[in-house]
């Protein structure tokens, strides 16, 4: 029974993992609400997979605790994991067995899975991920995308309360990616909590209700997607020839504008409006009053990508 008064499907307290002297995961406090689609974001090497392995009892935490579906891991692993479907760091199968036989193998490892309903459950899981036609082919002959689908089918073999999906769209074509998104949406609609890790922002932005951002072993931001995006902040952009005047005008309104060259005559001036203190109409009015000739004027909410880059740093360097 889920006796978690907290309403959290996953809850970690100062969860830490050290390998030798290197800290892979540094005292993270995850809070994944039940029923949410929770995006776990971070660049490669930021500690996402190690965290997921601790949630699933594969890796022992150095310190800190983690509760999954209200129960301590890894102590209660035998009663928790049957309620959890997982895709960990890519799919893995016996290449010389068919898709069906691979699922049979994994299902037989679960002592709560009834062998009487096994064939039917495998069929419906394969159908759900669109693999029915390749069910009896050896996995050896599967493409990466097909293996990924088979991995999802394995996670869906039994009714689950929580799905932990590590990079579920890796290796899928755009069509497959969309199918996975729809699948996740459907599962969430059934009330299943979905915990998805990804390094692709657009994926998280399209699927998730909540997210946490990891960088160098730390959680640097966590909350609903709206909170993360900073919906309270507007970004105003003006394309004009009268750059200096525009900068002065915006500065007078309490903003800190920046300019960037856009062409031989005109330039973009951009500024963040924190907490939406100034209405867009007031900005455009003030600019025109000051005699700024406006070619283009836009106000938008900052994208998740900008927040992500701001939090984790840009470029390919692995932090640590």
């Amino acid at each position, binding site marked *: 029974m889920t006796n978690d008064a907290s309403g959290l499907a996953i809850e970690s307290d100062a969860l830490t993992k050290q390998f030798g002297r290197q800290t892979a995961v540094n005292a993270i406090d995850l809070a994944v609400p039940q029923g949410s689609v929770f995006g776990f974001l971070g660049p490669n090497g930021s500690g996402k997979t190690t965290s997921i392995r601790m949630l699933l*009892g594969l890796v022992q935490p150095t310190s800190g605790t983690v509760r999954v579906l209200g129960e301590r891991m890894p102590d209660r*692993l035998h009663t928790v*994991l049957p309620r959890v479907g997982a895709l*960990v760091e890519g799919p893995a199968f016996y290449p010389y067995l068919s898709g069906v036989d691979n699922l049979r*193998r994994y299902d037989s490892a679960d002592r709560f899975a*009834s062998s009487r309903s096994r064939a039917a459950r495998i069929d419906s899981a394969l159908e759900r991920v669109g693999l029915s036609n390749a069910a009896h082919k050896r996995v050896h002959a599967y493409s990466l995308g097909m293996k990924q689908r088979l991995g999802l089918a394995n996670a869906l073999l039994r*009714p689950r309360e929580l799905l932990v999906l590590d990079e579920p769209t890796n290796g899928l074509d755009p069509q497959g990616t969309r199918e996975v998104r729809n699948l996740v949406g459907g599962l969430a609609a059934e009330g299943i909590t979905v915990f998805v890790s990804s390094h692709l922002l657009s994926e998280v932005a399209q699927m998730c209700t909540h997210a946490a951002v990891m960088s160098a072993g730390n959680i640097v931001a966590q909350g609903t997607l709206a909170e993360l995006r900073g919906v309270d902040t507007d970004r105003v952009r003006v394309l004009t020839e009268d750059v200096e005047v525009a900068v002065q005008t915006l500065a007078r309104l309490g903003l800190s504008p920046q300019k960037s060259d856009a062409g031989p005559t005109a330039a973009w001036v951009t500024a963040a409006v924190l907490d939406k203190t100034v209405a867009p109409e007031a900005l455009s009015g003030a600019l025109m009053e000051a005699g700024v000739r406006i070619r283009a004027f836009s106000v938008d909410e900052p994208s998740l990508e900008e927040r992500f880059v701001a939090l984790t740093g840009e470029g390919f360097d692995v932090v640590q």
Partner: protein
Amino acid sequence: MSSSSEMTNARPVPDRRSVGWDLLGSELSVLFRRRRTWAMLGAVALIPILLAIAVRLSTTTLAAGEGPPFLSRVTQNGLFVGFTSMVVAIPLFLPLTIGVVAGDTIAGEAGQGTLRYLLVAPAGRVRLLLVKYAGVAAFCFAATIILTIAGLLIGAVLFPIGPVTLLSGDVISIPDALLRSLLVAAYVSLSLLGLAAIGLFISTLTDVPVGAMAATVVVSVTAQILDILPQLAWLHPWLFSHYWLGFADLLRQPLDWTAFGTNAVVQLCYILIFGALAYSRFATKNIQS
């Protein structure tokens, strides 16, 4: 699909927890559906076949005691093909195949990434170790039985079959001789269980199956080398390979079970020690593969 609720209810009621024999069935089916397993069993079956053909084709008659034990008797009685090939296969070939299967148990699953999915299923680490060991044990029995059967068949085809004169000089009937063959197969299978436990332990140490396989074979060869050094005589009774060729006692009348019992005790010690080591290593291992 009338009852879609089975897939969709938000509070899945787990099926009743079973003892979990399914995983053992799955392990055996995966092991014995692998081509590699049958390639090795086929190679095991080739030993008596090649041996019998070589003896049949050669014109020189061996003096008693020349060549491997029992070889000189093969031409008189086909039932000795099985015994002779067992003696030939024990020092290297059988340990080699056991090394492959035992070394592959955990490291093989880790190497191909299936270990993490078995564990999150959840298979349970202790249960997985037990099932894996049972799989290796089943392979030991399969290998020796196949060697015995292949030996009996090719012996019957190429040589006369008749009542068997035992090492003690007594003569036993053909059915009794077949029973003794099975007894020898059981003895040899049992002899290999200690090495199987060592292989299982080594397999928990690495994610590279080939390394675990090679290490297990090296251990087996090393034990046999130690066994021939007279300076280490005190150690010999404790070596898992010391009783490997001791099945001659089963070919005496009356049947002498002493070697069988001693062998069983030594193998059991190895199973307990290396089983415990494998458990202590694997139970808390960080699965990074």
